[in-house]
C-alpha cells in the first residue's frame, strides 16, 4: 500500500525544504501532490523529487525559474530510460534470430563505420 505524507511531514523530511519553497513548487506545478479530502498528500515519488529539487537549487545553485525546464528534461530522460529498459528486456527475451535482425538494423542506423581507404 502506498505511503502518503502530509505537508508538515514532508517539510520535516526533506532537508532544506521550506514552506514558501514548497508552495512555489506546487504553484509552478513542478510537484503535483494528490488532492485528497484532507488536503494535499505527497507520495514517495514527491518526496524524492522535492529532495532533488532542493539539491538542484542549493548545491547546483540553479535559479528557481530554471527548475521547471531542468525537471522537464530530467523527467524526459527518466521516462526514456524506463522505456528503454523495458524495450531491452523485451528484446533480451526474443530468440537469437530476432535479436540479430534488430542488432543489424540498429548498427546500420546508429553506428558509423569509417572506412580507412587503402592507397589513393
Amino acid at each position, binding site marked *: 500500500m502506498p505511503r502518503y505524507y502530509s505537508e508538515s511531514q514532508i517539510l520535516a523530511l526533506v532537508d532544506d525544504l521550506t514552506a514558501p519553497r514548497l508552495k512555489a513548487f506546487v504553484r509552478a506545478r513542478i510537484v503535483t501532490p494528490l488532492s485528497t479530502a484532507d488536503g494535499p498528500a505527497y507520495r514517495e515519488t514527491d518526496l524524492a523529487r522535492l529532495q532533488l529539487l532542493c539539491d538542484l537549487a542549493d548545491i547546483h545553485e540553479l535559479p528557481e525559474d530554471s527548475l521547471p525546464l531542468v525537471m522537464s528534461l530530467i523527467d524526459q530522460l527518466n521516462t*526514456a530510460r*524506463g522505456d528503454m529498459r523495458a524495450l531491452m528486456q523485451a528484446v533480451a527475451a526474443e530468440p537469437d534470430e530476432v535479436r540479430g535482425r534488430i542488432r543489424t538494423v540498429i548498427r546500420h542506423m546508429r553506428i558509423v563505420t569509417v572506412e580507412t581507404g587503402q592507397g589513393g
Partner: protein
Amino acid sequence: MAGDPYEALGVAKTASDAEIKKAYRKIAKSDHPDLNPDPSATARFKAASAAYDLLKDAEQRRRFDAGEIDAQGQERPQRHSYREHAEAAGNPYARSYGFDGDPDLSGVFSDLFGRRGGRGGFSGFQQEEFSDPRDFHVRGQDYRFNLEIDFMTAANGGKTRITLPDGGDLGVTIPKGVRDGQTIRLKGKGGKGIGGGGPGDAYLTVSIAPHPEFTRDGNDVFLTLPISIDEAILGGKVPVPTIDGPVNLTIPKGASSGRKLRLRGRGINGGDQHVELKVVMPAKPDEALEAFMEEWRKDHGYDPRAGTKAGG
C-alpha cells in the same frame, strides 16, 4: 558509512564547518545519482552525504572526534534518489520525449508505450502549431492533477472539489465505477489561451484509496464476511454490506471458511459482489459447547486434512 567521514569528504580533521559544507557540495555537484549514472559516483555521493550528515552537526562531530560514537549507525534513513522512482512504471511525472509528433514513428511508439502527458509540469516549448507568426493563437496549457478518492465515491460516483495550485478550486463530478489510474478530462478547465486560442483542459488522474472491507477487480466487488459457528452449521440469512447498503444473504447449511458466494448484480455498474465466508469462533468457548463437542467427537469425528498433500 563504515569508513572515516573526513576521508569520505576529502577534508582534514581540522576542517571548518564551511570547508566541510563546501567539500560535500563539491562531491554532490559532480556525483549526484540523479544526474550522474556512474555507480561509483553514486557510492561516493552516498558516503559523502552520510559523512556530511554526521559532521554538519557540531555536537555529533564533537562526540565522533572524542570517540563517543562511530560513523556507523549515524547513517540517516536512505536518501531518496529520485531516479528509481522516476524510471518506474506508473510514475506520475512521466512525460513524452519527442516521439508523439514523429510522422513515421508515433504509431509504433504509442503502440508500445501508450501516450503520455507532454505539457503537465512545464509550460514551455510544446505549443500548438501556428502558421503565421503575426497571427498568434495558442491554445491554453493542459493541467494535470492527481486526485485521490475513497472507494465508495469511486464505486457509486459523486462530487468532490479539488484545490488548484494557484489557490482556486474546482468542482469535479466523479463518474460511477471509475477505476484506479483512470483519467477524467475536464474540458476547458486548463490554462487560458492566447489570442483566439481556447483554454486548455484539466486532466485528473484518479487513484482510489483502499477500503477496510471491500476490494474490487473491475466492476466486481469482493468482501470477506465473518459468520458465527451456529450460522455456519445451521445456515440462515445474515446481513451483508454492499456498495448500495446491506442486503440479506442466505448462508447454506454447513458452510466452511473460504466458501465463496455471489450476489449477482450487486457490484459496480451491474458487476457482481463476491462474498467469502469466514467462520469465527466465539471469543471463549463455554462449558456447554465444550461438553457437547467432547460427546460429539466420539462418534462423529472427521478428518478435514484427509485430502491434503502435506498431511496434518
